[in-house]
């Protein structure tokens, strides 16, 4: 009895399978948002204790690279009005690698740099002493009315200067250096070798109150 039934065609019509799969595919294509956790990393300073006055760090004027952005998104770099941020990262690299008055450690650091970075050292006594901690600081000061976009553009350029120096030290391109994750010991060693002796000293000042809300 049952055998008789089994003789009827047993094949499922699979011709429309592709169409069904296509429909599902298109649905997922449309609804997909590939999560992107990309951005510019920043480490905020630790919170201030109201009982302890903020530490008074004395730095020579020549060791600070001042960038001011006002409420109209206009830039003042080292006291000079600048139209755009295109040359900013090159200026910062020159500032960082100036080696105006290096101490012993800084001389050792300088000797370890690749030739392309060594040639940037102008030895200008009016610019930074050395790029090690306590040496060169890049300061960004904004206004409460400055747009976030402009602030990020400036921060981006400062980061670019640092990453290009780091990458050059280990013989990578900046993109490759930033893609290092530090998961494997070899990658971690590369990251550390790039950073060694040149900490990212970016000071982001509290914006002042004019022209904002």
């Amino acid at each position, binding site marked *: 009895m049952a055998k008789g039934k089994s003789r009827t065609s047993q094949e499922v019509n*699979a011709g429309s*399978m*592709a169409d069904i*799969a*296509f429909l*599902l*595919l298109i649905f*997922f*294509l449309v*609804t*997909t*948002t*590939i*999560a*992107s*956790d*990309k*951005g*510019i*990393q*920043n*480490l*905020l*300073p*630790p*919170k*201030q204790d109201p009982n302890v006055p903020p530490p008074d760090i004395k730095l020579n004027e020549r060791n600070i690279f001042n960038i001011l952005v006002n409420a109209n998104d206009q830039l003042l770099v080292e006291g000079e009005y600048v139209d755009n941020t295109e040359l900013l990262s090159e200026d910062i690299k020159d500032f960082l690698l100036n080696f105006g008055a290096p101490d012993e450690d800084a001389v050792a650091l300088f000797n370890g740099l690749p030739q392309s970075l060594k040639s940037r050292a102008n030895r200008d006594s009016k610019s930074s002493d050395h790029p090690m901690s306590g040496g060169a600081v890049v300061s960004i000061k*904004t*206004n*409460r*009315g*400055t*747009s*976030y*976009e402009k*602030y*990020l*553009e400036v*921060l*981006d350029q400062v*980061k*670019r200067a640092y*990453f290009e120096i780091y990458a050059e030290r280990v013989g990578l391109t*900046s993109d490759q250096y*930033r*893609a290092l*994750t530090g*998961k494997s010991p070899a990658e971690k060693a590369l990251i550390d070798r790039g950073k060694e002796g040149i900490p990212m000293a970016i000071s982001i000042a*509290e*914006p002042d109150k004019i022209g*904002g*809300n």
Partner: protein
Amino acid sequence: MGKFKKKTKTSENIPTSALPDIIFMLLFFFMVTTVLREQDILVEQKLPQATQLQKLEKKTLISYLFVGKPKNSNLYGTEPRVQANDVLINTKDIILWVNQEKDKLSEAERDQITISMKADRDVKMGPISDIQFELREADARKLLYASTGKVQN
């Protein structure tokens, strides 16, 4: 002329029997990579562009803050607001929110929490710096300015 005609006699059918399999493979790829939106975003989000992007590795450590002009300006006004999870919050409530987010993490990871700030490009620095001040107070110092890539020149 005659030479070319001979070729046309060969079979012209492309085998399409493997087509469903190929489509299925694509389908599975998209199904796996899809993250369905868990939350409605109540503020405008046009992320700024930058070149020096870095990727964050551990997604579990990331909490998101959305900053921008409310989409529904009749209800929430036109001033930039902060959205955490599903609701718009006041800047003062950020400390509370950070502590809630920290509670979700294990003891050891608590101080590694990273805040991904997805701020609209039209926001001014005033609100941003207020948020940063609150984050410092809440001791969540790792901050990521979420942005999209820009072609480098």
